[in-house]
């Protein structure tokens, strides 16, 4: 399949009084046409900053993309002028954020927010854009669009606001939608509605989705391929089926084992990952996960493992990736 978005060696750093925080530290990943790719990890691993970097929305002057290339439809987004970049944002790449209330403008009607996008990017007239806005609302399952366009964000529920965000992201028929924790703030029955909606719309409209989430269940249900991030780096990448059936990085393995599962018999104890994620301004040498890893050997603490193939398209950044399934973890105190 054709590669749509090709991120290479991306480095985004933040300069703070506490030192340089390497939020994204040399990651490469891609999204192919029409597929759903997940970027999974815990808070502070750099997954949101990766998405913001693609949109060039990293807050300056503290945050800066210091290295890398972001290829999109044959162009390097990092080489575009600000004016050219504005043509990409919202038009060719749509974005859905976690908090629909804080990403919608509270003093503008949702009609204005929807029509603004298409008028700016597609040069539609007022009547054209109004018709398009009504069409978009019905597309995302909000009936009675003509009336609801006159309402303000606070008059909608959380689930409805997220539907509006999705409508805005899809307004200009983008080929890619970046969705940053799109359902984290929502209840589980509403989460199911929104994810089904995103999946069916991306199929119908042929848009690829880059989904950023910490929820392994959501990833399992909706993603084609998965990238696992830890401390600013990608530590494992494979198809969703492969990564869940055959995890080859101890962090992925730890994440999968630490969550209770409804489809399995209840375990008497959960198996947490000991310790906590590292401070990104003071990373240990070698593998960043080594201090929490039950399999770590001396080499892990000295030499950083590269993201390398295990089999085919399954990559892992672990010195022990090949023998991981046969190893027994060292007992750790919890």
């Amino acid at each position, binding site marked *: 399949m054709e590669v749509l978005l090709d991120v290479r060696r991306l480095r985004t750093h933040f300069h703070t009084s506490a030192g340089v925080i390497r939020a994204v530290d040399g990651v490469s990943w891609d999204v192919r046409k029409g597929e759903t790719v997940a970027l999974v990890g815990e808070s502070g691993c750099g997954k949101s900053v990766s998405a913001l970097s693609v949109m060039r929305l990293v807050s300056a002057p503290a945050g800066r993309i210091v290295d890398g290339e972001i290829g999109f439809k044959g162009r390097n987004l990092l080489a575009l002028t600000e004016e050219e970049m504005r043509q990409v944002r919202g038009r060719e790449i749509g974005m859905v954020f976690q908090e629909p209330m804080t990403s919608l403008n509270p003093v503008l009607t949702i009609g204005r927010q929807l029509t603004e996008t298409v008028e700016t990017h597609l040069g539609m007239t007022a009547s054209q854009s109004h018709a398009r806005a009504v069409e978009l609302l019905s597309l995302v399952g909000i009936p009675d669009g003509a009336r609801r366009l006159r309402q303000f964000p606070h008059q909608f529920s959380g689930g409805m606001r997220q539907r509006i965000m999705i409508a805005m992201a899809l307004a200009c028929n983008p080929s890619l939608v970046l969705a940053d924790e799109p359902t984290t703030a929502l209840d589980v029955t509403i989460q199911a509605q929104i994810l089904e909606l995103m999946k069916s719309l991306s199929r119908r409209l042929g848009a690829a989705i880059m989904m950023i989430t910490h929820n392994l269940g959501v990833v399992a249900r909706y993603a084609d391929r998965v990238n696992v991030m830890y401390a600013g780096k990608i530590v494992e990448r494979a198809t969703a089926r492969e990564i869940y059936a055959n995890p080859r990085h101890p962090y992925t393995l730890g994440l999968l084992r630490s969550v209770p599962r409804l489809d399995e018999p*209840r375990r008497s104890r959960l198996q*947490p990952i000991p310790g906590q994620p590292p401070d990104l301004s003071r990373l240990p040498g070698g593998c960043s996960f080594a201090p929490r890893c039950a399999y770590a050997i001396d080499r892990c603490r000295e030499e950083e493992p590269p993201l390398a193939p295990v089999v085919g398209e399954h990559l892992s950044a672990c010195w022990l990736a090949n023998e991981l399934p046969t190893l027994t973890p060292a007992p750790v105190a919890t």
Partner: protein
Amino acid sequence: MSTSEPILRVANLVKHFQVGGGLFGGPAATVKAVDGVSFEIQRGETLGLVGESGCGKTTTGRCILRLETPTSGEVVFEGRDMAKLSDAELRGVRRRMQVIFQDPYSSLNPRMTVGQIIAEPLAVHRIVPDRAARAARVQDLLRHAGLLPAMARRYPHELSGGQRQRVGIARALAMEPSLIVCDEPVSALDVSIQAQIINLLEELQAEFGLTYLFVAHDLSVVRHISDRVAVMYLGKVMEITDRKSLYQDPQHPYTKALLSAVPIPDPAVEAGREHVVLGGEVPSPLNPPSGCVFHPRCPIAVAECRTIVPELREIKPGHQAACIRL
């Protein structure tokens, strides 16, 4: 265990909030946050209280703790009706009943060190009046919560989310409670840390014989930690039974939909699963639907559901649900 006196009995608990009607408000309205909730918790067990936001699970917990005064209904804790206690008696009872909050950061005083935070209730309630003994007790509590003694000198902002939640747990333990209301204690934490805190709560329960009311929205976590589970929707209990019965043989259509909505972290399993996606949204508790509050979203609702308020009744031995279609 079931034959003994329950540690907590909640009967027909109602909490209504008046909104509007004030100086700037529109017409007054009533939010029926909790609308006739009844359950019992036996000593040493964990009752999970699950439901989506706005279902009244947190308000139920706050009414039990007497952080809210119930509109009506009974809360009987260790044989004493909480509504009939004087303020002084209530303070004594409160010691036995503690709470762990969702957001460990906003529930810890940022100007106090961890040691001061844990020592304060020990001094206020004269549990350990002697200063030196108190410091020793703080060290002991920190150790029980899985923190190093040196943490006593730190401030909350210096700690990670998981460490802060451990401080919240140590503070609750300081009172030597018999019941702890855990209000979404792990939902703000990363998954790798959630498991650490859940294991800790289970260890402490075994060691101190604690009873938990575990309020949460994550059905997988609730299954792991609970002995019995109550499912709430719009201020009412829809179903209540032991863990096994609820997860293996759910009766209420709402419980079934909730369980189906939880994605399972395994694509192979997910591909073969049937997904019941509920239509609509949770209606406002300001204006709940007539009859069964779940009927507008229910896949098996019939005309009567719009008028008849279903009673919570025994469907199978030890398994109660509120649905006229069962």
